[in-house]
């Protein structure tokens, strides 16, 4: 069982947190952007002049990935990974980094997918009533709020560690 204590060091836990924040939020955004892209290319085939509007809707679920990335970078800076000699953490300290990363990892992941669905629905608004497009954007941005809250809590936790 010695390998267990070798693998689960504080530093590994902290890096696991970074990996989850960047990874899960990135997966969510990739899925969300993908969903809108699929819906959008259908409309684009019908009416190529709507490309700009489709683009705007498509990038909306992309921000969660960025939030995860931001948290990850901040954690790496705190851990002094970029200077070449990473700080040594106890098991508890590492676990706290992991916990700090979880809000944006989980909320970023799932909210990006929900947001993608809302934005894909809003593609229908562009098809039928292009002048109402902004309301579609508003509905999609409503979902974003919770990712912002998660980003903030993750950030504040990491900065306080």
């Amino acid at each position, binding site marked *: 069982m010695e390998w267990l204590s070798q693998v689960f060091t504080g530093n590994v836990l902290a890096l696991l947190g970074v990996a989850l924040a960047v990874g899960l939020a990135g997966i969510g955004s990739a899925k969300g952007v993908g969903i809108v892209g699929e819906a959008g290319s259908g409309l684009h085939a019908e009416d190529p002049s709507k490309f700009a509007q489709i683009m705007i809707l498509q*990038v909306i679920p992309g921000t969660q990935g960025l939030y995860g990335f*931001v948290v990850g*970078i901040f954690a790496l*800076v705190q851990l002094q990974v970029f200077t070449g000699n990473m700080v040594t953490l106890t098991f508890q300290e590492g676990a706290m980094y992991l916990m700090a990363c979880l809000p944006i990892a989980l909320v970023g992941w799932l909210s990006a997918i929900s947001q993608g669905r809302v934005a894909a629905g809003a593609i229908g608004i562009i098809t039928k009533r292009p002048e109402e497009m*902004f309301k579609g*954007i508003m509905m999609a*941005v409503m979902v974003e709020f919770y990712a*912002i*809250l998660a980003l*903030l809590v993750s950030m504040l936790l990491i900065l306080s560690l």
Partner: protein
Amino acid sequence: MILPMKKARLLGLACDRDRIFAELMRLGCVEIRDRAALADGPEYAALAERAVTDTDDIKSATRDLKQALDTLIRYVHPKRNMFAQRPVLSEKELLNAQALQNARDAAAEILGHRREIAALNSEEGRLQNRSAALRPWIELSAPLNVSSTAHCVISLGVCPASAKIDELAALMEEQVPLSVLFRAGSDREQHYLMVICHVSAETEMNALLKSYGFSRMQFKDVGATAAEAVAACEMRMGEIEIKRGEIEKAICSHAGELPMLERAIDALGLYMSRAEAAGNALSTQSCFYLTAWVDETRLQSVERVFSRYDCAYDFSSPEPESDAPPIKLKNSKFIEPFNMVTDMYSPPDYFNVDPNPLFSLFFALFFGIMYADLGYGLVLTAIGLFVTLKLKARGMFGQMCRLLIIVGASSAVMGLVFGGFFSDAVNVIGSTFFGRDSWGIPPMWFDPLTDPLTLLIACLAIGTVQLIFGMAVQGWLLIRDGKPWDAVMDIGSWWLLFAGIGVLALGGAPWVMYAGFAAIVLTQGRRSKNIFGKLFGGVGKLYDITAYLSDVLSYCRLMALCMAGAVIGSVFNMLAGMLGGANIIIGPILFAVVFLVGHTFNMAINIIGTYVHAARLQYLEFFGKFYEGGGKPFKPLTIKTNFVDIIKEEN
């Protein structure tokens, strides 16, 4: 404020109808009401059913002109200058009958050309198919419609690519002596063959061919060899190419008529809206009747038009119970851009209040707090100013640009308050390039990232102020509508409670709060019939305190967006700093690239979120206190043009 409206009724002579509509259109302050609104009386029913004007002709002409314009644009590719001003015409010039006729003739010619091109295209497609079908036979020197003779059976056909043709030829030589096999060619799918045999051997031949999967083909309509037929196809395609070029040139020769077509489309649009408005009047052989909403500030000019004709008319004020006048808002230059925010929700009810002056300051402040950055704010203001002054943006777009100037300025100010200039750019530039760690813009108040709790409390306090203000507006509306006691009981009792909570929080006695509770329990059930209803209604209303609480907490989004923008911006600064510090020569270039791309991205994603959340706080939290939407926007009969501007002629 909501512009007051008057209801007008007009009974006029049919012969004056078109002229009256033309004049009302020029005034642009009269909305003709839908005919359904005035045909409730039985005596009108018969009139309401009859079509008054025939718009089909205008519609089909407009369609032709638009199609011709599209065609012309497709072939000519006119260079459009985004900043160009639209040509200015008088109404008489626009409606010139000769110009309209010329445009329709030109359109007919262009559409004729378009049809010719379509015919050529489909012929070309047919030829392409045909030459593709004949090309495998090109090696065969016999004409393809060659027919059997008295002694020979000649057949053309194909075998699947899997069939072994050499084997077939050998077998033929063995089993059917009087036969010849020509192979015209092969491709991935098939072998193309011609088989000749003596009449006497036909059955054996057929049996053999069948076993190799041979299927016959006939080319009755090809009177030449494949090579000749393909050459003929290609020649014809060449001709088509030239012909099409000529027609395209003919279309392009109409390039100069493009503005004429655009004008004609606008002219027809004008006729169309006039005809549609006329369709909303009730007409008989000799007279017509209409009701309309008139902008009260322009009443005199409308009356002047009516009085010039032989007609009967009157004006009356709208009744709160039975009428729903359309909404037109009139505000100062500073407040007008906020109309956009209200319009996205719903224009106010005519008898409610124009919310724009009430929320515009809050909106600008909220936007500023959430976007708080000196650099970002200045960029927004600069963009808004540039578009407004340089491109002379008008209408909805112009309002958007002016809103951008206002919210940009507000963000810049809040950026100073919180000490943000492209997030922490000054600090990063100092430490990366100048080796100073102490650079930075000192916040006028505090740095949100180091003291988020203060920011949260400030945001909730601002929110409470807006909610109390919203309740005050509701109270004022109640007093205005003659219900001062409702104002005291519905608003006053809650304020008493809030004041009590405030006193308690500051360490005072709880008696004021108890009085507030009592006031709510005693007054909020007053609409119930019996004493139990009154009591339970009042106690139930106490639960509303959770609604107020969640309203206040909702303002924490101000803090969230404020900090999120700054955090993301500082990550881009950090990345740029890492690259920038790496090398003395390309470092600054990399720094600039990452800085520009990163902050542009951050600004773009944040501006949408900030706008939406600033608007949402108005829609749900503030409007929820007093606002009644559902008004229909005022749509006066007016000159609407897409390609030209009409100068007003005095009359």
